[in-house]
């Protein structure tokens, strides 16, 4: 039997050809071929009158995240036999073949939405941050963009934010390699900055949600980070932001966006000595009044016991009632509910503490009101601030006066022409306009000091004069009628 060797011959020929073709086909794809020239530190080219170095170190690419990529995958259409390798060569565009949707991973730089990745400032240019051949994985701790290093990396451009952030509690956690510590990208990958096409109120809602995401373990559950945060949504600020008030304070407005420090740090915005200035950013008038008050002045002298805004108003609307010894209620015969209703409990908590008051040479609330007749009635009807604050517009209770300037004369309250009532009336009118707007607040205001025009003498005289007038008219009219009738008969 004759063997057919034609098939074997064909295969042998094919393999021989393949042995020659492989080097030919793979010649231009091998990075070592490119690096044969480009590893030379002297290699450069002239462009627009400038010498541009063209060296790529031998181990740069193999150590990068692009180690499996060939030079020509990015430098497409380059011919190694010709110099330059390509006519009209353009810079490498990462977004053409591989990274087609870069915005997904770069939400922290919202301007990148419309970027081409090739030109423009560093925040919209791939190479601005990722550089050239030494691109590293963001998970690689050697990467300057790794979360541990991001403060330094981003801070190259965002210097003031960097300075703030390195003083923050968040940065301390980052330094301790806490994987849950928020870094630049952790927060800024959310739509929280004005670079996003969102209205201010929505941005603030997003900011609030971002903070609460970590600081609150679900609705109504406090986390280890903020014990007083549970009822933030019920607070006046939380409610305002839910109503879409773009000026409502959210977390960062008080705590700062980057320099988030513990309250115990003296430079913290929420340090007890800085609270009045912090609240005064929005509540200017109140803050100014407070700072002039006896408490504000004491606080400025660094008195550790002087109450500040949050002492009465709470931190995140948590108004835990201060502890007042039961003895105080027994001595003064004031109902606990009255104290709570009138907010006097905040004053009493300190001012009934004999030890604390002795420290500052102040009489306790009981001793200071020995002179006051009908104490029980006064306690029920009059709040501490009614007598102890200036009653100067626009607010009634923040300029707490020293004892010598407080209301102490009976007629200051018990007279219809009292200066106190004048100020209260003015306050009510102003409040009405603030609440209902200028026109409605003016027309619909029911502010009126009942009885202010009453005077027993004037009232009596006016009734007599009125009766006489009506009587006079009736008599005169009757006489006219009678005389006319008489004349008619004649």
């Amino acid at each position, binding site marked *: 039997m004759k063997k057919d060797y034609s098939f074997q011959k064909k295969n042998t020929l094919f393999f021989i050809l393949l042995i020659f073709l492989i080097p030919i086909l793979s010649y231009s794809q091998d990075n070592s071929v490119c690096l044969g020239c480009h590893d030379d530190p002297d290699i450069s080219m002239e462009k627009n009158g400038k010498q541009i170095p063209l060296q790529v170190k031998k181990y740069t690419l193999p150590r990068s995240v692009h180690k499996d990529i060939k030079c020509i995958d990015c430098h497409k259409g380059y011919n190694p036999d010709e110099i330059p390798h390509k006519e009209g060569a353009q810079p490498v565009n990462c977004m053409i073949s591989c990274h087609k949707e870069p915005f997904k991973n770069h939400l922290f730089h919202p301007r990148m939405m419309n970027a081409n990745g090739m030109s423009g400032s560093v925040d919209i240019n791939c190479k601005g941050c990722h550089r050239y051949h030494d691109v590293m994985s963001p998970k690689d701790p050697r990467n300057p963009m790794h979360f541990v290093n991001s403060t330094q990396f981003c801070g190259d451009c965002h210097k003031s934010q960097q300075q703030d952030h390195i003083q923050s509690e968040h940065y301390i956690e980052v330094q301790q390699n806490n994987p849950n510590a928020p870094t630049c990208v952790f927060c800024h990958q959310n739509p929280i900055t004005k670079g996003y096409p969102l209205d201010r109120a929505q941005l603030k809602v997003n900011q609030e949600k971002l903070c609460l995401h970590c600081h609150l373990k679900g609705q109504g559950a406090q986390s280890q980070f903020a014990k007083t945060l549970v009822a933030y949504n019920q607070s006046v600020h939380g409610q305002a932001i839910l109503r879409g008030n773009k000026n409502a304070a959210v977390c960062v407005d008080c705590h700062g966006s980057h320099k988030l420090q513990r309250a115990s740090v003296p430079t913290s915005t929420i340090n007890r000595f800085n609270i009045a200035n912090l609240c005064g950013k929005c509540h200017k008038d109140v803050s100014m009044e407070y700072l002039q008050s006896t408490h504000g002045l004491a606080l400025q002298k660094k008195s550790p016991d002087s109450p500040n805004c949050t002492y009465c108003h709470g931190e995140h609307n948590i108004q835990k009632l201060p502890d007042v010894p039961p003895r105080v209620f027994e001595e003064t015969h004031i109902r606990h509910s009255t104290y709570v209703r009138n907010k006097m409990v905040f004053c009493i908590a300190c001012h009934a503490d004999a030890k604390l008051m002795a420290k500052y040479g102040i009489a306790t609330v009981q001793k200071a009101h020995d002179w006051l007749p009908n104490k029980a009635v006064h306690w029920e009807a009059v709040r501490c601030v009614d007598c102890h604050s200036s009653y100067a*517009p626009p607010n009634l209770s923040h300029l707490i006066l020293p004892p010598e300037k407080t209301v102490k004369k009976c007629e200051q309250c018990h007279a*219809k*022409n*009292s*200066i*106190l*009532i*004048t*100020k209260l*009336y*003015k306050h009510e*009118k*102003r409040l009405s306009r603030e609440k209902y707007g200028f026109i409605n607040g*003016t*027309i*619909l*205001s*029911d502010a*009126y*000091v*009942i*009885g*202010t*025009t*009453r*005077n027993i003498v*004037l009232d009596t005289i*006016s009734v007599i*004069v*009125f009766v006489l*007038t*009506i009587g006079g*008219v009736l008599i*005169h*009219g009757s*006489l*006219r009628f009678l*005389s*006319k009738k008489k*004349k008619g008969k004649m």
Partner: protein
Amino acid sequence: MAKLYLYPVWLRLWHWVNAFLFIVLITSGISLHYSATSSLFLPFNVAIVAHNIAGILLSINFVYYVILNVETGNYRYYLPTAKNFVRNMLLQTRYYVWGVFRGEPHPFETSRKEKFNPLQKLTYFGIMFFMMPMIVVTGWLLMFPELAPDEIAGMGGVWPMAVVHAAVGFFLSLFMFGHIYLATHGDTVGSNFKAMFTGWHIHEGHDDEHGPDDQHFDDYDYYQSL
């Protein structure tokens, strides 16, 4: 029979709006004054809103009245005449307390030159140029108390405003009763009321007629010549 067109449309409009607002203000004002002890006429919350709204409208109406008076020269009718002032007053008073019962004619007949008798002039002058501004200004200060002084002679600044406002209001309400009664002293009880609706003052005894078509009547020159 004399027929005089004395009350132009703008004046009648002002007069009746003013009359309506006076009634609202007096009713609500009395309700507010006595609101501490009783609920006269209107409940407190209705009275205060009614008083606020009517007060604002009265002020606007008063400004309208002042502008039109200056514009037309109508204010000259109100200026008391110095000549024979006391004698004229006595004559008019004598008529009201004596002459009217004896069927005597009015001592000062209404004419195009003299719309009002001397007593009317004095009263209207005082009301329109003193009492009305006083009640309007004090009313606005009560509405915007921040514009009122904090203290007046050691008293709260609002209280004197309130007392002046109430006192002037009382005198104005007395005036309204007197005004309505004295308006019955025309040729007939209703003739003056009718005149204030039609604009025509009709008086028996003369055959004369001057109407709005009469040359110069509504003209500025005519008022200037008064």
